[in-house]
């Protein structure tokens, strides 16, 4: 009787049986909404600035309500022409190729570490973990990559240095440990499956959520990388988008800082530099594609989390 009453009340205001009390739900919603705003407002702000006229920026600085709107920044970018599309192409190319290869390498390495019957497991675990804590330093890395491996001014230079991230290997290994039962491998072996068959036909399909997670991490890392191009690429043909943006920014900073050293020439060069709105427009162009890729991966990541928790 009592139970029925509660249920009917809940039904009347459209609430489900397992819902929490109304005030706390409102509170939680407000908190989450605020959090969402905090995440999204900077981006909206960037978009607004990219449509602000430079005159308005000069008068009142950055503002949500500029006195004057303009498309100048985007027009300028379209005039940038070849270099922009070239950089877009480069960014997409290295992101796709880099993600595919690095995911393959990462899961293969992690799978070997996960297999208890692999004798050198301890050594390779240490080998991987050690590099996570101690690096060779910048100059030796540069020397090895550029002069010994010939990674300079080619696409390999943009892809190879980031192929294996030890941290991803550890994530993946842990994922295998929690979600792949050893019995499955034994069963596959009994049914006559070889190592490659077991791995690609049995392990990979049930590890999709984990793979999607590291694929996302890798693709974001490749897309956002500007430091590696800075080190190894001098030919504008190979510039990815992020590096193009970085160069514009640091060019402006450098000229501003050293204006008095370079002499009066500098003021002319500063006047020719892209304005703030243009930089923001570039940010928009850089962020959009990767933001579009996110929902696609997100589906797997969420299901990955669920599977993990159910299995315990």
């Amino acid at each position, binding site marked *: 009787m009592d139970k029925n009453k509660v249920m009917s009340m809940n039904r009347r205001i459209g609430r489900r049986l397992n819902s929490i009390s109304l005030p706390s739900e409102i509170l939680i919603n407000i908190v989450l909404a605020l959090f969402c705003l905090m995440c999204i407002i900077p981006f909206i702000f960037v978009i607004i600035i990219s449509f602000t006229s430079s005159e308005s920026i000069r008068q009142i600085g950055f503002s949500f309500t500029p006195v004057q709107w303009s498309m100048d920044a985007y027009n300028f970018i379209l005039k940038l022409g070849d270099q922009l599309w070239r950089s877009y192409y480069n960014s997409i190319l290295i992101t796709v190729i880099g993600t595919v290869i690095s995911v393959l390498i990462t899961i293969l390495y992690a799978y070997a570490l996960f297999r208890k019957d692999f004798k050198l497991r301890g050594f390779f675990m240490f080998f991987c973990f050690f590099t996570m804590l*101690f690096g060779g*330093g910048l100059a030796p890395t*540069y020397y090895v990559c*550029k*002069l010994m491996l010939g990674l300079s001014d080619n696409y390999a230079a943009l892809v190879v240095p980031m192929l294996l991230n030890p*941290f991803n290997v550890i994530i993946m290994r842990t994922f295998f440990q929690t979600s792949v039962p050893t019995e499955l491998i034994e069963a596959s072996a009994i049914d006559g499956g070889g190592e490659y068959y077991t791995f690609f036909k049995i392990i990979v399909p049930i590890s999709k959520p984990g793979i999607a997670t590291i694929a996302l991490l890798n693709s974001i890392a490749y897309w956002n990388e500007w430091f590696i191009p800075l080190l190894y690429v*001098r030919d504008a043909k190979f510039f990815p988008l992020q590096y193009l943006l970085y160069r514009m920014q640091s060019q402006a900073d450098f000229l501003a800082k050293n*204006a008095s050293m370079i002499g*009066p*020439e500098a003021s002319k060069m500063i006047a020719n530099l892209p304005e703030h709105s243009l930089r923001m427009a570039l940010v928009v162009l850089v962020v959009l594609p990767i933001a579009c890729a996110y929902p696609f991966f997100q589906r797997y990541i969420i299901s990955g989390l669920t599977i993990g928790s159910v299995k315990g």
Partner: protein
Amino acid sequence: MKKVISIFLSLLMLTMIFTGCGKKIDNDSNDTGGDNSNVNATDAPDATDAPDATDVPADTAEPTPDISKAVTLKWYLEGSNVTDDSEVLAKANEYLKEKLNVTLEPIWGTWGDFDANSVLAINGGDDVDIYFTCSWTANEYNAFARNGAWVRLDDPENNMIEKYAPDLWALLPDVLTQGAMIEGSSGYGVYAVPGYKDIAQQNCWDINVPLLTKYGYTVDDIKNTDYYGFGEILQKVKEGEGEDFFPLLVEGAVLERMVNNSIIVTGDSAACNILSYYINPVDTAAEGAYGNKILNKFETPEYKKFVEKTREYYLAGFIDPGMGSANQANDLRSAKQLSGEYLIGTQSYALGYEKQASKERGFEVAMVPCTPAFVDTTSSQGAMMAVSTASKNPDRAMMFLNLLNTDPYLMTLLDYGVEGVHYNIVNGEAVFTDTRANYIPWTNGMGNITLLPPQEGQGADFWDGFKAYYGSAKEIPILGWAFNFKSVENEMGALTNVAAEYALSLSVGTIDPTEKLPEFLQRLKDNGIDKVVEEANNQLKAFLDAKGE
């Protein structure tokens, strides 16, 4: 959560990599510097060419050096805006092949990437032969000469200047060849070829003439007074032009130097100068009021007087508050200069700039100098070309530098482009075509620019005036000296942060000096400014003693 951890850990790794690396590089370079104090170029991983280098001194009697082996020279430049160099290089290489048997491969560094990239290339031992270097980029001339990155050009055992570039050395003004003499890894000598460009410093008041005339003043009225006497003129113009008009357009740091006749101390923190040397405003070759002493810039009575006056001007509404924001100041200044929304501005001057500025801004601009033009370490080392110790062909690199700086054809070709394609000569002046947009190297960063045809609007006799102006510029007494802050590195770091917090705001008047200046001085003291000043003075004294000998 995984992402949070991953971000945290990657940050940790990055910091470790960077800190680890900074130390590492220094040690490495110091070691090599110490080891090869008397032998050049053995540092390069393949030392097969070393016999070449040692052979040559024995053959000094031979007038023409051996160039039978074809070599490629990599040349790292700064400030370029080059997207298509194929045409220029085809011509240049044809010419160089014939003259020196050299193929040139320029690396067109830009303002955006040169700093980070050149330092890495040097420390990583890249096979670049010639680097642009100067007193204000990250691959700073003095510091890298001490670390053994540059070949000493006048090494007594292999004097490449005498062998390959006597005519170039005869042609350069004394202030340049003197300014290039520094204490490096192989002793006191020349480690780079200085570029003959606008080598003198002169700060000028940048005057908006039409506006000044409108209020019944002439440029002479500005000439006859100084910063402390501008008040009346500024007041009148401010009243006439309204509340939103700010007649005094200043760059904080430059304004302070102009008013107090202080100069940049080479080697001082690049982010914010805290040391000062005071020059003599009448005769720059003589000692200033404080003698050959380095001072804490903010402690002097001059500075106090200056900030108080500036505060007064600021409160009267003569200075735009936007000038106190480091991020905005430059954009704001460029914009206001172009639109003419100022009466008096600050400008570091180069010969002919008033003409150029008048043309760009569309109204008459006059420049009123504060001191005679002078040459200090910073400006004499303003653009140089150094031969890298990693170069396998330092001799050929030096020959190339000599040819570049003495041969008008080669210099013009590399700097302006191909005649008829990138520029045309009209009435003795170079007029650029649209194709030049694909090939704009930084003119002043390349070398002896007096070899070039004058640019449009400069007048056909531009270089005569140029040589007269810069030739007559006097050197300051401490020319050639650069501060090496290695031993007080930590103090410098802390002081730079403190100075960044106060200096600009004080110099444009946005904060009250009666309250903030003592606070600022106290914090400088707390962070060890006295130790830095003392160290600088010790170094200066040692330098002057060595120079006097």
